[in-house]
């Protein structure tokens, strides 16, 4: 994602830095791009429809397709390793929760009841989602199972604020 020519727009560039290409053209905010696991699409947040929502676009370009429709604030798309579901952050009544959408049925489940969740990230096995949240004014890491049943705090011992977790690739 680049801020170029004013405003946030999404560009594709080769890993060697060559082939810079604008992917989506709009006068709105386009940000938080994430590849689908098969590499064929990019999911991103945009307010092109009037409020922050999640869209999908093919890496070859074309029309962006809107993915989220419930509520007035849906951002931070993260695809599951099998590409079948998407975790994201949704705002409900002023509170920010981790939500999960089945991409085939479009069914949405809200997984957390904490108020200031951010940056969801799938575990490589696809069964847990780690995210940043706030407890007593401090940034902490937490995790929730994809069915919402198991919740745990991961970083209560840390004194500093914790932000933007991303699951490391598993290297043998």
């Amino acid at each position, binding site marked *: 994602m680049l801020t170029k020519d004013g405003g946030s727009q999404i560009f594709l560039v080769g890993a060697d830095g060559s082939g810079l290409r604008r992917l989506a053209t709009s006068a709105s905010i386009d940000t938080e791009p994430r590849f689908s696991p098969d590499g064929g699409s990019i999911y991103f947040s945009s*307010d092109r429809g009037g409020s922050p929502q999640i869209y999908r676009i093919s890496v070859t370009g074309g029309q962006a397709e809107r993915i989220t429709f419930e509520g007035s604030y849906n*951002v931070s798309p993260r695809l599951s390793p099998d590409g079948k579901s998407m975790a994201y952050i949704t705002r409900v009544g002023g509170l920010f929760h981790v939500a999960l959408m089945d991409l085939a049925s479009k069914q949405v489940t809200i997984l957390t009841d904490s108020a200031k969740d951010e940056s969801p990230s799938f575990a490589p096995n696809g069964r847990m989602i780690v995210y940043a949240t706030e407890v007593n004014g401090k940034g902490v890491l937490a995790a929730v199972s994809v069915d919402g049943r198991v919740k745990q705090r991961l970083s209560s011992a840390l004194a500093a604020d914790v932000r933007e977790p991303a699951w490391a690739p598993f290297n043998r």
Partner: protein
Amino acid sequence: MRNIYLISAITVLLAACGSQPPAPEQTPAEVKTSTPTDVVVTKPVVNVVPQPTFDAMSVAALKDPRSPLSKRMVYFDLDSYVVKDEFQSTLAAHSKFLAANAKMKMLIQGNSDERGSREYNLALAQKRADAVKKSLALMGAKEDQMEAVSLGEEKPVCTDQNEECWSKNRRGEMLYNGEY
């Protein structure tokens, strides 16, 4: 004979001039005013040094609360980067100042409140800074005098968890050379 009288007359005249007692020195205290003595004068007579006229659109006025140029904040609604009408007169003053002072530069810093996605807030704050810059340019400021940057949610002016604080953080802030 007549010449002698002339010389004498001149000499007498000169002597008379020379012997005149010097005029008493006038001090300000002895200056008589035209105020009638039975009227009570409530204001003391002072030497008034004329003050320079205050120029609200000068470089000196940039931080003077009497000048609209001292107003540096544009506040935004939630999720929005629309510049509201209530800020148009402040922006008009700044654009007029920039147009008249080609050497002045402005940095516009966009900010958001701390709720929601950090990355999204970075983009939102950029849009806010861009909107302020665009408004100023439309009213006469030169594009190359201004730079719009985003601070996202990283530089709040307050950290309370309430709308009063959040609304203060949803802002575009205008800074001139030497202030950043």
